[in-house]
């Protein structure tokens, strides 16, 4: 036992004895001052799930308004604030937070470290991000907006110039958008730097880069991409604030400035950003699919190479959001090619997952259900992405509901589905209890049905000429039934997510006890207790392959005999 570097299940609990009952205040204080990566990870994810419910409610409101033509459920002003906030919230307060929450919790555990490289920076980054989000939401009640109630941003989440200029957006709506995202951006930057430093500098003995779990590899690539993705947005937002408050002319078309320059800067951020959001979904799939197929991931080196390839190529595709702005035909052609090229490593990943499942013994627990749906849905999303990359066809589809359907297919159909998979997979590790399988299956099937009812239908109304960002539409355009169906699906999704929220809370108190390794998995986080002690591992682990627990469980057939 002395030679063993991994604690056996049920071995001595070396955690400090719990102090006597703490008051609520002491409890909260612990959480506010924590620098423990696990607690910060939980804070990020809880924050993200809260805003998932908020932005989801905004989506339901949007769909109620659009369920019938010329509806008056919301005024134009309110609707424009809602769709702007829905997008901004989902990308920054839900996507980025949940992703970095997962990374925060899991990366140190997976690489055999005791915490992140910079625990205090970690805490600081979280609170910066959290504060930025609260600043954004303060806009509903603060400021002195000209139109309607409150001052929430109403310029679209892409905030095109010159609509955001002082002349066209008096009041503080745009300022809330720019300033809160600048603040959140610094938080994100801190966390990304932390993850990179942790992965490069704190891996346990024997864990070379090519033996790291793919989840951690992808979080490394993701963090690197984040460094050069968020920063252009921060720069552009500084420029916007300079225009609005120091009478600068960056995007001032009256002074020779260019609205198109804002578009370039925004999409130089905006496109890689969607890869920042989707790579962690791949990261989760890379962990869940092998474990529930009972097979190692097929083509680990290719998966690493494809992820790095995606990150690099994604930096060259941004102007496929700008096919209609009047770039030269040569420029348009270039971005068609670069966009299609990023589809190649992405497609390769799908094939690798297919090959992982092939020949396996698939267990259909809730995490795997979400991942299987992810595979089909991501395939479709990728294909509609290829359709959108065809510039002349894009001239019809751009800014229509076809685009909205496409990106929701990625954001919900791929990313949210994988996040759900990840939560069902790692909740036992975080809390020590399993999420209820029955509620999980209800959640899955209702969400799946609602998702498809809404977003499959949405593609068609886009093909029929319905543009996005409109608070209402004409009754004689033939879009009515499709919109009603789309809205109905939204309600079903809402119910599914509520079941999920109930499951999270209920299982915390009444879930089945999980033990160290309820899924019979292979990476280091499953070798320690559930929840892990504050120091993670009793002894620093030493590894010899990509699946240290497989080696432990199969001493007659260890991975290191097969890995190059």
């Amino acid at each position, binding site marked *: 036992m002395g030679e063993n570097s991994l604690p056996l299940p049920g071995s001595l609990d070396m955690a400090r004895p719990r102090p006597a009952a703490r008051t609520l205040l002491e409890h909260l204080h612990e959480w506010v001052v924590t620098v423990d990566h696990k607690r910060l990870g939980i804070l990020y994810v809880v924050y993200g799930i809260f805003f998932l419910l908020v932005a989801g409610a905004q989506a339901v409101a949007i769909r109620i308004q659009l369920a019938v033509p010329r509806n008056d459920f919301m005024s134009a002003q309110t609707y424009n604030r809602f769709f702007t906030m829905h997008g901004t919230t989902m990308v920054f307060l839900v996507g980025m937070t949940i992703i970095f929450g997962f990374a925060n919790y899991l990366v140190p555990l997976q690489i055999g470290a005791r915490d992140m490289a910079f625990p205090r920076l970690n805490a600081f980054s979280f609170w910066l991000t959290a504060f930025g989000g609260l600043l954004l939401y303060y806009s509903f009640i603060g400021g002195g907006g000209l139109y309607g109630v409150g001052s929430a941003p109403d310029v679209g989440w892409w905030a095109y110039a010159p609509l955001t200029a002082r002349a066209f957006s008096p009041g503080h709506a745009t300022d809330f958008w720019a300033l809160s995202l600048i603040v959140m951006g610094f938080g994100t930057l801190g966390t990304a730097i932390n993850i990179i430093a942790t992965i490069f500098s704190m891996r346990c003995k024997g864990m070379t880069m090519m033996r790291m779990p793919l989840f951690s590899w992808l979080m490394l690539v993701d963090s690197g991409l984040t460094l050069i993705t968020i920063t*252009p947005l921060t720069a552009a937002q500084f420029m916007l604030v300079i225009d609005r408050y120091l009478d600068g002319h960056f995007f001032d078309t009256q002074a020779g400035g260019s609205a198109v320059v804002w578009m370039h800067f925004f999409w130089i951020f905006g496109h890689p950003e969607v890869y920042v959001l989707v790579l962690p979904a791949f990261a989760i799939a890379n962990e869940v699919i092998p474990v529930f197929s009972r097979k190692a991931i097929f083509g680990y080196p290719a998966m690493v190479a494809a992820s790095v390839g995606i990150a690099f190529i994604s930096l060259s595709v941004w102007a496929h959001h700008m096919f209609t702005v009047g770039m030269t035909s040569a420029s348009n052609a270039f971005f068609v090619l670069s966009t299609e090229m990023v589809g190649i490593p992405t497609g390769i990943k799908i094939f690798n997952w297919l090959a992982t499942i092939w020949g396996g013994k698939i267990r259909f627990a809730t995490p795997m259900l979400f991942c299987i749906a992810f595979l089909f849905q991501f395939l479709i999303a990728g294909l509609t992405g290829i359709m959108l990359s065809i510039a002349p066809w894009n001239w019809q589809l751009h800014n229509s509901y076809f685009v909205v359907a496409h990106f929701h297919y990625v954001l919900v159909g791929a990313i949210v589905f994988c996040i759900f998979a990840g939560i069902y997979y790692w909740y036992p590790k975080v809390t020590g209890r399993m999420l209820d399988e029955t509620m999980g299956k209800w959640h899955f099937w209702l969400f799946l049905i609602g998702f498809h009812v809404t977003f499959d239908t949405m593609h068609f109304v886009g093909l029929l000429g319905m543009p996005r960002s409109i608070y209402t539409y004409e009754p004689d355009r033939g879009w009515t039934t499709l919109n009603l169906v789309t809205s109905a699906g939204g309600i079903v999704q809402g119910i599914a997510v509520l079941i999920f929220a109930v499951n999270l809370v209920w299982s915390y108190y009444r879930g089945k006890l999980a033990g160290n390794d309820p899924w019979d998995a292979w990476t280091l986080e499953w070798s320690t207790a559930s929840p892990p002690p504050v120091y993670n591992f009793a002894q620093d682990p030493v590894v010899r392959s990509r699946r240290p627990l497989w080696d432990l469980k199969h001493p007659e057939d260890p991975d290191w005999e097969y890995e190059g």
Partner: protein
Amino acid sequence: MSAVTQLPPAYEGEWKLPSRGRVAMFGLIIGESAIFTIFVVAYLFYIGKSLSGPTPQQVLEVPIFGTICLLSSSLTIWMAERSIERDNVTGFGAWLGATICLGLVFLGGTAVEWHKLIYRDGLTISTNLFGTTYYSLVGLHATHVIIGLLMLTIVFIFTLTGKVGRRYAERIAVLSMYWHFVDAVWVVVFTVVYIIGR
């Protein structure tokens, strides 16, 4: 069970990983470079596009002296690094002080230049596209110089109170990475503003 603890011979030796401070500073530099790149691109794009007001040719004077000072400060901080690696605290303090002085001279030069531009030439951030892009880019760089000088000064104060020794060489190396970055950015800004843009 014991199979896990048997490492292949290659790993019986040292398990050497890069220093987390250096990796983190490298990450910060990459992120900051992206921010500067956007401001540089905006500057380059808007060259010659101002609709009115003073042009770079009319009002810009090449800050040769300030540039020499700032670039020399990279040398002096490198000397400081070498001193502290050899535990030569006095030498370190001297070179660090020199670095700070050179940085302050650079900032002073910028201040004098801006005073002239604003009060004599009438160029402000709101005058025209040149004004907007010039003050943003040079100002962004100057802000980074100020932050760097603040950190260097804090270290200098710790040196004077005798707290600094060889054990801090690694952290000082990380700080000087930042300072070198600031200088490298100046090379780019200088080229774009005073050479290409004029």
